[in-house]
């Protein structure tokens, strides 16, 4: 049996920082490999930054639920927010070709997350976004 951790943060960066610190503690307790921890941190930072920066049409505080299920280095990260509907899998591809002065980083966060994750799925229900990210660096095929 694995462990399951649940967090609720508000849509601001100080709370995201605290969440990241807690995740790093969990990583220590569970002996995550460096690579798994790196990928997990990318997914959390990118997806939550997106939600905090662009997810809401008002300036009110909102709850974002983050759940982490850990079982033998297979991990499922679930992020639930009540912002407007946004499926990261539909995002535009980032600019990878422009020269230095013209290079923009829009879309890079989502692209990085998709590359690091083994599987991403998105669902909109009850006026909420449900994003599930599977990280399974040691499982060959799922």
């Amino acid at each position, binding site marked *: 049996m694995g462990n399951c951790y649940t967090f609720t943060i508000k849509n601001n960066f100080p709370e995201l920082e605290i969440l990241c610190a807690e995740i790093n503690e969990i990583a220590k307790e569970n002996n995550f490999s460096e*690579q798994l921890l790196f990928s997990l941190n990318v997914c959390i*930072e990118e997806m939550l*930054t997106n939600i905090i920066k662009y997810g809401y049409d008002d300036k009110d505080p909102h709850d974002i639920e983050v759940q982490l299920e850990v079982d033998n280095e297979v991990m499922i990260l679930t992020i639930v927010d009540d912002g407007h509907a946004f499926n990261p899998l539909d995002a535009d591809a*980032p600019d990878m070709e422009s*020269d*230095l002065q013209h290079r923009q*980083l829009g879309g890079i*966060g989502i*692209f990085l997350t998709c590359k690091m994750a083994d599987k991403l799925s998105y669902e909109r229900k009850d006026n909420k976004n449900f994003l599930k990210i599977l990280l399974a660096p040691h499982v060959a095929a799922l």
Partner: protein
Amino acid sequence: MKLTQLESTDKITNLLLSGSLDVAGIKDVEMDFARLASGNRTVVVDFSGVIFIASLGMRMLLSAAKKLDSEGGRLILHSVPPLVETALETAGLTKVLPVAKDAPDAISLSQLQR
């Protein structure tokens, strides 16, 4: 996150970054990094102690590189740990940001014609 200025010359500023370039880490260094990584000079950053980077950290590097470039300088990273380098490559940043193997390699890169 820590930013240290190492022995530098008129033309080359040597910096050492260490820690995690995450949401919290960037806040610690972004002001100083923007101030030191500017002007008509080569800024060489030892990345050996950087354990994490994602798009927020990349944004900091890219904006410094653009500013340096427009002022006649350039930004060169070296000794980048494998996971960090993979992330930079995945994001396509190594095409616009030179990454050298080590400090001497960074110096030879800085002497190449642009």
